[in-house]
């Protein structure tokens, strides 16, 4: 039973996965462009997913036994594979059209205040809009706004930017033992809030910052101190009595600007870290430095260095009729993104001067 495998074909690429695997996770095994974007699903959070609808795919064949296609697009993060299932992601015009719609919906009430947002540069909504969105908006109304709010001494809630993915709700619920963080109201007037506006003081609550795909929950000890792409990610650890102590430091020179959990290639936290590590250990001497982090999402942080990424065996040829390339390659048009500059070789803090073309 345990070694039984299901064959599933996604965009003409076949993989074998264990029964119970979701379409999204099967696609992640293939990797690359056939992996649907996920804004709410988080493999470490039970019950997450199904909400944002960015991961919609078309099931063109249900299974070997029941080959009927599924009548509607399905959320790949919450739909498990069947043996012989055939799925279309970027090979389905229906999916691309629906996804474009979802991205547009996610953006109509988003403030687009990236220039003053701490998340800019590592924001999943930026990545998503860049890859799947339209360049303009058809929305002509005032955007929904909320008052900024502090939830505790370390976390700032900027509800206006929230996409209601519920990740922080699941995190607060599952990592901490008291349930005091949730959603008030409903529809487009729903908002994240804490019990009676109380501060969140659980020792793991800082993780909500890391799971938030946008800049709705940010680290007050880092707020406005720097842009993430000017800081250098470094993996480090310490002997922590509360958590694993395995973190990522965001440094400029010898200065630790920010401490976060380490994230994998899907932007998910590898191991949760405690508040003490995150908010209080801001000196190099607090840490044993392991070396530069491997950042392998196509974020500006990586400066074009997809260190550690397995190069996609050119599967894309198989993806009939589609050229799933980025609309534009930021590294080609931005001075700040110079692939030939190896971040870890820069001495001291990286500075915008380091990226000047004449350098």
């Amino acid at each position, binding site marked *: 039973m345990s070694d039984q495998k299901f064959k599933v074909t996604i965009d003409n690429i076949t993989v074998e996965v264990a029964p119970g695997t979701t379409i999204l996770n099967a696609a992640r095994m293939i990797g690359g462009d056939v992996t649907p974007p996920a804004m709410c699903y988080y493999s470490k959070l039970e019950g997450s997913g199904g909400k944002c609808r960015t991961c919609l795919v078309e099931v063109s064949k249900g299974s070997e036994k029941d080959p009927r296609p599924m009548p*509607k697009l399905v959320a790949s993060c919450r739909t498990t594979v069947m043996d012989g299932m055939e799925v279309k992601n970027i090979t389905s015009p229906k999916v691309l059209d629906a996804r474009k*719609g979802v991205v547009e919906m996610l953006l109509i009430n988003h403030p687009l205040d990236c220039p003053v947002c701490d998340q800019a540069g590592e924001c999943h909504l930026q990545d998503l809009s860049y890859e799947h969105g339209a360049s303009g908006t058809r929305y002509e109304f005032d955007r929904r706004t909320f008052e900024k709010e502090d939830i505790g001494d370390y976390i700032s809630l900027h509800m206006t930017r929230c996409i209601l993915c519920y990740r922080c709700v699941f995190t607060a619920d599952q990592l901490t033992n008291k349930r005091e963080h949730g959603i008030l109201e409903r529809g487009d007037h729903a908002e994240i809030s804490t019990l009676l506006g109380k501060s969140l003081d659980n020792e793991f609550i800082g993780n909500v910052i890391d799971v938030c795909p946008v800049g709705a929950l940010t680290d007050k000890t880092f707020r406005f101190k720097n842009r993430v792409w000017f800081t250098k990610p470094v993996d480090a650890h310490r002997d922590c009595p509360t958590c694993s102590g395995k973190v990522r430091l965001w440094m400029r020179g010898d200065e630790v600007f920010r401490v976060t959990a380490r994230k994998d290639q899907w932007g998910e936290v590898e191991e949760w870290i405690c508040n003490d590590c995150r908010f209080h250990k801001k000196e190099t001497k607090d840490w044993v430095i392991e070396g530069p982090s491997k950042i392998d999402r196509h974020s500006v942080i990586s400066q074009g260095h997809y260190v550690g990424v397995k190069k996609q065996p050119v599967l894309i040829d198989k993806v009939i009729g589609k050229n799933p390339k980025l609309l534009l390659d930021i590294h080609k048009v931005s001075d700040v993104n110079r692939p030939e500059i190896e971040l870890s070789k820069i001495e001291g803090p990286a500075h915008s001067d380091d990226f000047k073309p004449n350098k």
Partner: protein
Amino acid sequence: MKLLLEHAHVEGIRYYDTYRKNGGYRSVEKAFKMTPEEIVEEVKKSGLRGRGGAGFPTGMKWSFLAKPEGVPRHLVCNADESEPGTFKDRYLMEFIPHLLIEGLIVSSFALGSNATYIYIRGEYAWIVDILEQAIQEAKNNGWLGKNILNTGFDCEIYVQRGGGAYICGEETALIESLEGKRGNPRIKPPFPAIQGVWMRPTVVNNVETLAAVVPIINNGGEAYAKIGVGKSTGTKLLSVCGNVKKPGIYEIDMTQTVEEFIFSDEYCGGIANGKKLKACIPGGSSVPILPANLTLKTAKGEARYMNYESLADGGFATGSMMGSGGFIVLDDSQCVVRHTMTLARFYNHESCGQCSPCREGTGWMYKILKNIEYGKGKMSDIDLLWDIQRKIEGNTICPLGDAAAWPVAAAIRHFRDEFEWHVNNPDEAQQRNYGLAHYADPIHVPVTA
């Protein structure tokens, strides 16, 4: 033909003694002589379809209920009735509460539910008292409680008030709310039949569906199936509102034409105040609106009947749905744009906000419709509306997204010139309504998908 409301006019039918004298609780006596499987079989034979909106065959739903050893099962009665235009369950519960209680006892026995819940719309506060009194009376007379009629079957019925959210009528949101959580619809699968309330196998049925079990057991499934036409068996309650002479609750056997239903004195009595029929929403606010000509006749030019199949004839291009039975009639002084805006506001307000297309799209549609209605619309807004509803429909967790999209789609599909008139004549549109246009005349209807 009346099955459910047969005794509704009897003085004092709300109370146990009168109800019992008029043949009440006979079906329980009969059911207890049958096996649960035989009851499910009778319901299957009856062809009864869910009266909550989707019209799913009840017997089939019951047979899907998982029965793992040692795990309790539950029956939940959906009395959340919040769809604009729908108020049939209220009438039934208010005037003949014992009919529902009787249906619940029989159904609980058939499904093996020892704890059965009625989840009732919060605003129906006074009906909670009526139901609780009926439950108490039934209990006092031995129809509920432990070892009912010495059969060894225990059953309690609990009434739970909702908190005032339309979305809690969606069965999985209802289950969440019943469990004391935020009423967000669950992602399916798993379906309630496998994992429902407290992750136990659960059947959720509408009030009218469960009441209909009483005549089915009393007269037999086959007798019930003989009433009605085709797959629309039995009788259906309709709540009629809008511009007719006699709004109210009607029980029909689904053999009437829509024309007869709207215009005959036996039913709605025609359009009030000497006006003309402009449009009709036959099954509650979520179903597509039809212009007069398509209300009365199908695209093929045949008479349209008051049943599941005929109302849906032509698909969404030229047909609509039976839905929840909220029959809304609009006369020629009604404005379709304003009407659509009102519905859009409702869905915007009631979206639970879990999925992005519904959360954001409903608000967007409402804002655009408000602009058009108040003379600030652009021609391109009409196409934009169409595109937004298209992006919502089918892409959400629960059918509320569809329910928000369909009324907008149908209004544009059938009344586009009224929208255009609003855009082109913003000032005039503030002064008067567009009126009837050509829709009441038998115009040619293109048969397109």
